[in-house]
């Protein structure tokens, strides 16, 4: 009996000693990132580059913008990468974040089945949402997870003259996925439904989807990604130095160029437009 445990334990320890450290290395930085940036695969490339340059372990947590703020407030991450300007500004104003640094942007898209049952193609985002809610001629899959994309969706409902709560409860056509951007796209495709997505994740998933972009123009569709270092005054344990390195890294000309070219080879067009430090106003 005890023999079994000892053997199991030894097996476990050798297995872990082989490669996977059970205890964290000294220098680590934790970043909670919006799912849309992760699902495009961008972090998969940036992570090793950053680790090589600064000789630290970068831990990426796949988290919607909502939970990313929560991790930041609880001091469980050193920086957050999100795309929800209003809540980002509040996060900084409340003293949880040091500074909000935009580093890339793209646009949101309303996508749906090619046959477009609600006939929203070419409309403005607000009109398209209005028609979806009024005709209910197709399903709509919402992220439903307080992510940046979800907040944007609620903003568009508001701009279209609807109370989001009313829309939510208006019937089975409105589906709340409660998952990341990638899974939500896959669900929308399975259900042949409309959804709101960032252009980057859509392009990265395009091959797996039976959905097409229907609305891609409108000031409200601007989607800006920012990085915020968690404030060491609120959270003495966070590593502000490495967090600042990450910000410098993301806004460096070399990485900005990389972000701008990311996806060109694979998808024919870039997924993001670099905008180091500049505040974008809706044009």
């Amino acid at each position, binding site marked *: *009996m005890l*023999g*079994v*445990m000892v*053997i*199991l*334990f030894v*097996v*476990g*320890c050798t*297995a*872990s000693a*082989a*490669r*996977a*450290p*059970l*205890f*964290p290395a000294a220098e680590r930085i*934790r970043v909670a990132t919006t799912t849309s940036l992760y*699902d495009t695969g961008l972090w998969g490339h940036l*992570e090793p580059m950053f680790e090589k340059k600064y000789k630290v*372990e970068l*831990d*990426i*947590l*796949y988290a919607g913008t909502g939970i990313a703020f929560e991790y930041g*407030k*609880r*001091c*469980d991450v050193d920086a957050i990468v999100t795309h929800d300007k209003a809540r980002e500004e509040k996060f900084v104003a409340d003293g949880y974040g040091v500074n909000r640094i935009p580093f890339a942007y793209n646009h949101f898209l309303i996508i749906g089945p090619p046959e477009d049952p609600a006939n929203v193609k070419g409309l403005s985002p607000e009109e398209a949402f209005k028609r979806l809610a009024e005709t209910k001629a197709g399903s709509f899959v919402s992220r439903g997870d307080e992510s940046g994309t979800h907040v944007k969706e609620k903003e568009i409902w508001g701009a279209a003259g609807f109370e989001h709560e009313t829309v939510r409860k208006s019937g089975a056509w409105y589906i709340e996925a409660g*998952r*990341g951007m*990638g*899974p939500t796209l*896959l669900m929308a495709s399975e259900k042949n439904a409309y959804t709101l997505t960032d252009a980057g994740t859509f392009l990265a*998933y395009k091959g*797996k989807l039976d959905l097409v972009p229907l609305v891609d123009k409108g000031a409200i569709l601007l989607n800006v990604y920012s990085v915020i270092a968690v404030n060491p005054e609120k*959270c003495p*344990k966070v590593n502000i130095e490495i967090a600042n390195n990450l910000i410098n890294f993301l806004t460096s000309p070399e990485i900005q160029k990389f972000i701008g070219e990311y996806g060109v080879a694979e998808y024919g067009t870039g997924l993001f437009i670099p905008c180091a430090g500049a505040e974008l106003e809706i044009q």
Partner: protein
Amino acid sequence: MVELWHAFIKALELIASLDSEVMEITRRSLAISVTSCSITSLICVPLGSLIHFNRFPGKSVLINVIQTFYSFPTVVVGLFVFVLLSRTGPLGELGLLFTPVAIVVGQVLLIMPIMIGLTISALSGIDGSVVETAMSLGASRTQASILALKEARFAVLTAVIMCFGRAISEVGLSIMVGGNIKGFTRTLTTAISLESSKGDIELSLALGVILLTLALMVNLLIGWLQRR
């Protein structure tokens, strides 16, 4: 069905080619689950026999509570450990959130009730005269308990297998307190969850096949030890 077949082939390919990332994740899954299972066994087998061999008021209530905890949802345990280990939480100073240690802590809490409960039922299943005889021959209570555990070893080892199974297959807890960090806290189940959310069903299924193969190997090992 073709998809399942492809996944199976893919799993074999991944195993045969010793794909470094998959091997790393597999090793980590195994290490975490074996560690939590060992810790739990060392705590809970003695604890279970202590409960079994002692009479005290509320014993049956306690056993009922323990058995209710068998069905504790992994995400709820995850939430509890998250709040406990978060830097603003009571054990935040330790900086353990989003580390493999956090997953071990959670898994231990998750499988403790099962280990205690099944130890108690294992001991209930043995012939009571064994213990009585040993005591009448002058064995101490501890010696008698060890004897009883030896008698019940098959059932106790089955409990260990159950616990290992619950630990290696849970996903909600690992994501919540481990964070599914690549190269650090990503385990087989969290990788499956991520890959399927990316739409890579084939790879997800292949990882599932690897997980089951791992469980089979552990079961064979324990079975072999049982027979010795």
